[in-house]
């Protein structure tokens, strides 16, 4: 916009490099931590890069303890939850995909009515959603635990999916509503004059036009659900129903688990959403902005 002088350009480059370094610092830590043994971590506590690189941390996680490689050869103890890695990964995937599907389905219907029908009750519905978005998970978890316990729904994936869907639905509606509002209504009106019901017009005309909105909202829902810890932590205590964040949280208090193994499992858990963010950055940026301020 304005011509920048050379010293200004240099200062901006330096500022950028500093920001980039801070963004990448934890990534460097997780990668470097995951490719070494606890011996090399302990041997020299001042050394930045390990003297030798090993893939054994990943080997032991990905074979669920079957193959231990060199660094876990002598280990007498491996946390049980590590041995359920694929189960946990699959659980996380089932929960995230289901929650994404359900929030998109119900969220789209509600967001559409909020955007199109200007009645007192749709405004109230919008306001209810805005307030709901602020409800902290911990307030829901204590009663939900007691309810799910009495219903016998503790330790099931469906309980987690239902709870997360309810928890995230208001956010999905807030993201989607401004997009629907921006789609011109003439097309549907024409279709409805031709005898199309409102639901048919919605499915055949509005939804195809709203593909970018559904992509933006869907990817955000998937990411938030993949990251969710508190809900599955409280509702599921049995290893066969744990999601990946719960498995990782269970390693926190375990004094026999060293950083190398923790960093390896963290790296495996963060890869799916990092790939999503890298590929769908544009949609996420739009969706985050849409969900925070009215369109």
């Amino acid at each position, binding site marked *: 916009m304005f011509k920048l002088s050379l010293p200004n350009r240099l200062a901006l480059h330096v500022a950028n490099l500093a920001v980039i370094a801070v963004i990448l610092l934890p990534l460097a830590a997780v990668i470097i931590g995951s490719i070494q043994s606890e011996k090399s971590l302990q041997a020299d506590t001042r050394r930045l890069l390990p003297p030798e690189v090993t893939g054994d941390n990943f080997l032991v996680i990905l074979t669920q303890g079957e193959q231990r490689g060199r660094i876990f050869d002598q280990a007498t103890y491996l946390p049980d939850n590590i041995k359920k890695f694929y189960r946990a990964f699959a659980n996380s995937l089932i929960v995230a995909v289901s929650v994404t599907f359900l929030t998109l389905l119900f969220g789209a219907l509600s967001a559409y009515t909020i955007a199109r029908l200007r009645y007192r009750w749709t405004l109230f519905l919008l306001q209810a959603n805005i307030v709901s978005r602020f409800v902290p998970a911990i307030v829901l978890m204590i009663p939900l635990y007691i309810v799910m316990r009495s219903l016998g729904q503790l330790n099931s994936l469906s309980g987690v999916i239902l709870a997360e869907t309810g928890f995230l639905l208001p956010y999905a509606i807030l993201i989607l509503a401004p997009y629907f509002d921006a789609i011109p209504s003439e097309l549907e009106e024409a279709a409805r004059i031709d005898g199309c019901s409102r639901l048919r017009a919605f499915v055949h005309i509005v939804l195809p036009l709203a593909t970018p909105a559904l992509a933006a909202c869907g990817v955000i829902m998937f990411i938030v659900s993949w990251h969710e810890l508190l809900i599955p932590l409280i509702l599921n205590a049995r290893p066969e129903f744990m999601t990946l*964040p719960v498995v990782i949280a269970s390693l926190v208090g375990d004094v026999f688990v060293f950083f190398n193994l923790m960093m390896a499992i963290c790296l495996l858990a963060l890869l799916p959403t990092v790939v999503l963010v890298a590929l769908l950055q544009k949609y996420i940026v739009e969706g985050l902005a849409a969900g925070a301020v009215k369109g």
Partner: protein
Amino acid sequence: MNLPTLVFLGAVLAYPVIYAGYLSVHKVGLAQLRRGEFPFSGWENYGRVLEDPLFWMAMKNTLLFTAITVISEIVLAVAIALLINQTSIWTSRVTRFLILLPYAIPPICNGLIWSFLYSFQLGFLNRILFSLGLIHDPVNWAGNPDTALYAVTVPYIWRTLPFAIILVHAALQGIPRELYEQAAIDGANAWHRFRQITLPMLQQIIAVILILRTAFAFAVFEEILAITQGGPGDATWVAAWYSYKITFSPPNNFGMGAASAFILALMIAAIALVYLRAVYRRVQL
């Protein structure tokens, strides 16, 4: 068409909140849970929570944590959004490409990664500082009661900052270029242009970030669990951690947990109402 949404809002949000209110005025421990009867206890749970010095410690920490993270995030978000807006600088384009990365990291992983960074003996941060020759003895970042709370704010800011940057950056695109050009003709320097044009035009989005981030920072949980578990001592107990520990670790006082969570919810509800009035007031949507 709204039936599924209403059912979900009712079953998973409204009902539990009301039920939490119900639990908070009843005696609910493991024994009561097994029997399925919760005797009414009036304000006793609230009384016990409010008499608990640990609760006040948690409240004080939550307020301090929130103040530090929210203020830092707003300052950093404006600065970094302006930085990545410099499209003629190639490093700005790199930063812009990477800016969303922390959003992709699961909070619990973020907490563990920083607990590795901060580790006194094995930590990556100390290793870097040794390599650069900046320290001679290892620093106990998260294990020192005086610095622990500040130490946990950094990972939280790192993870949640992209959201704020994106909002500010989006708002910057909405400022008409003519305003800047006119100001430059009038002889305004960069600082004046920022103070007189940019900052006023960002006012609304800053209010949005302030409210949203305050509400969410109030309920911080994962980073505390992964890095300090409330320690050392009780230096990093925060509100959500208090409710979680009171409820789900022995002696499992669900009633007190619900009461403390309800207090947290009321504080956040007050923030939500401000948001509703300030941001969605002229709602056409």
